[in-house]
């Protein structure tokens, strides 16, 4: 056990840091560009030097790096003020990429993966539906075979980046007469296809990070199918496993560091709040959770680097992290007292933005990618191997499952 770099790791870190310092984009590079353009600029630059998706095989644009090297790279990247690439490419590289890697044929891998790595093409994910939230497999969007194509009708929801994506991965119901999980098939689709209509969803935070995507007689060639007909759920699990690992990674917002700094700046009873023992006790418990999550991810890493697959234990990160961040944001606003109500992105972020944005954004994180309740179920059933609940939707055709409507 060693929480410090080995020699080889230190050398890799130095190489990464050196490249980053020599290649950090300057104002000239970025001026006049949109956030997406900035992300594409920086991603392309990284890809050219093989610093994009470094864990991927060289053949697909990566550098065959180890899990530990990947973390070192991320740590070094995080130290600099760089264009945010993950919000644009995270889903494609984190979910579509591994799924293509596992299920696409060699030709398609060679066609899609390098562009995905370099940010040349952007991918989105279309799984959720209005009727299938926690019960993801209850999706209803239909695909009907027509010659070499499938004709798709229905609605997807919670699709990040649908409007600027080139491609999307999606699961469709190809047979409603068999049991829920058995009638699904997995595809990818050109997001510019005729019949796709994209509408942004405004969230309570005021942002619109997600979309509803309507499909009206959209044609998807059968060649864009991943896995067999009816095997869609199985393929989707590859994607979801990787989703959990990436959402778990944390999301900014209120954390120990920012809350402690706030407590040093505002007063309780005439003294800095950080001197108040109630504040200290709360901060300490949150620190323990935060450190626990951090070291848990390190331990996962050690497992990954031995070749183990990311398991359901990754559900912990999001479950604990989101609840904690919600309570911390709420408490931070309390510390600000009356002025805590003020939320103005244009003013001092520390007092009037950071915690308020976190407070309004966090309810989404407790839901996206699996609610707290689903995460707890996953831990109970998949890690602790507790028995499933009786299923009302088991062994009957999907079309006969009760829906309440």
């Amino acid at each position: 056990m060693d929480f410090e770099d080995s020699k080889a790791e230190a050398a890799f870190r130095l190489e990464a840091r050196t490249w980053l310092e020599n290649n950090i984009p300057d104002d000239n590079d970025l001026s006049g560009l949109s956030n997406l353009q900035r992300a594409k600029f920086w991603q392309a630059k990284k890809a050219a030097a093989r610093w994009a998706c470094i864990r991927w095989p060289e053949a697909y644009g990566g550098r065959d790096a180890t899990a530990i090297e990947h973390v070192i790279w991320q740590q070094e990247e995080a130290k600099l003020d760089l264009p945010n690439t993950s919000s644009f490419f995270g889903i494609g590289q984190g979910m579509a990429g591994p799924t293509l890697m596992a299920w696409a044929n060699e030709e398609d891998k060679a066609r899609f993966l390098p562009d995905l790595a370099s940010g040349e093409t952007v991918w989105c994910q279309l799984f959720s539906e209005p009727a299938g939230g926690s019960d993801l497999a209850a999706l209803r969007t239909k695909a009907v075979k027509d010659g070499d194509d499938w004709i798709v009708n229905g609605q997807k929801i919670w699709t990040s980046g649908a409007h600027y994506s080139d491609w999307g991965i999606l699961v469709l119901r190809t047979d409603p007469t068999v049991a829920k999980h058995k009638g699904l098939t997995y595809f990818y689709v050109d997001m510019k296809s005729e019949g796709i209509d994209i509408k942004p969803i405004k969230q309570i935070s005021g942002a619109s990070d997600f979309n509803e995507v309507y499909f009206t007689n959209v044609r998807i060639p059968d060649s864009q199918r991943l896995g067999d007909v009816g095997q869609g759920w199985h393929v989707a699990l590859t994607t979801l496993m990787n989703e959990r690992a990436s959402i778990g990674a944390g999301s900014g917002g209120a954390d120990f560091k920012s809350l402690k700094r706030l407590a040093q700046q505002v007063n309780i009873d005439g003294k800095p709040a950080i001197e108040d023992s109630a504040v200290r006790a709360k901060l300490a418990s949150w620190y323990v959770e935060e450190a626990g999550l951090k070291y848990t991810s390190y331990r996962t890493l050690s497992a990954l680097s031995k070749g183990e697959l990311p398991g359901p234990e990754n559900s912990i990160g999001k479950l604990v992290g989101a609840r904690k961040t919600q309570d911390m944001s709420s408490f931070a606003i309390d510390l600000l007292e009356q002025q805590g109500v003020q939320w103005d992105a244009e003013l001092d972020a520390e007092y009037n933005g950071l915690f308020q944005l976190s407070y309004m954004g966090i309810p989404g994180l407790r839901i996206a990618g699996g609610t707290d309740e689903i995460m707890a179920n996953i831990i109970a059933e998949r890690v602790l191997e507790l028995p499933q609940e009786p299923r009302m939707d088991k062994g009957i055709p999907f079309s006969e499952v009760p829906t309440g409507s």
Partner: protein
Amino acid sequence: MNFEFDDDQHLIRDQARSFLGEHCSSSVVREVLEGDALYAEQLWNKVCEMGWTATVIPEEYGGLGLSYLELVVIAEEMGRACAPLPFGSSVYLATEAIMAAGSESQKKKWLPLLAEGKAIGTLAYAEGPGETDAASLSTTVSKDTLTGKKCAVANGNIASLICVLAASDSGEGASLYLVDTSDSGVTAETIRTLDPSLNYADVHFADASCELLGEIGQGRDLLNALLDRAAVLYAWEQLGGAETCLEMAKNYAVQRYAFGRPIGSFQAIKHKLAEMYVKNTLARSNAYFGAWALNSDAEELPLAAATARVGSCQAYYYASKENIQTHGGMGYTWEFDCQFFYRRSKALAVLIGSERQWQEKLISASDPVAV
């Protein structure tokens, strides 16, 4: 001993609920939340016509002379509807301040206006982030004029009168002052907040005329006594909001299906809503005791107020966040109403001192009272 409202009070509750159901539907809240209006003016006029702003004001000052038991019933309904109105700051804060500390002439001037709703009032004490220290205020009074800036004042851009905590010029410590906002020295700047269904403003005073409210140097004590009273009233409003959250969550949990059954049949959801019910029920019982203490001017008021306040803050926070959670993705959309209560719960939680301050007050007030 009798721990229930009487029939008249129940009647007022029913009336208030059906009135607000009709005139303060979610679209009315949404209009203020999304639009430029500072409050729902039409609704305000109707509420004033109903006499709600006049509830506890004595008849001699144009009020209805009813008790606080009637007022808390209305407060709960205001919270339940998440009303986008300056009701709290005007009724629980400004009206109470003048009734408690105002001179006869101040009462005669302001109470009838407040009763009718022609004047909207508020209270201003915070000067920046964190607790306000009455011993080192930067808002000061000199020769009956007041200068300084108060932050995040509830309804600061709507109010006709503001009760301001400021340092007296005589060196006798903090005092409360009344300022008429028609004075040219007063400018208010609406600020962006977590809860745009309410109005908040930074208020600047530049040699604005002011009148002493209560005795000089007594500002801190007056403020504390005032906040004790307001805490009970806000506790009822917070409770009302928490009750709506429980109701929304329950209705959704019965309708929404997953895995072939209503989500309300899963223990994860059941126990979440049971917990909400428990918190709300305890908060309600503490609010009852607070209402009784407020109404009977009991010596237990400081303890009862703090207990009601802490209970309602905790219940509303829990109910508003878990209501969103119960709704899943839809609860997080702008389109759904869950957000109203999540915003409002936080806005009210910091309006008259956060939970932590009231926990502190509770323990201080608990000696030698035992449960």
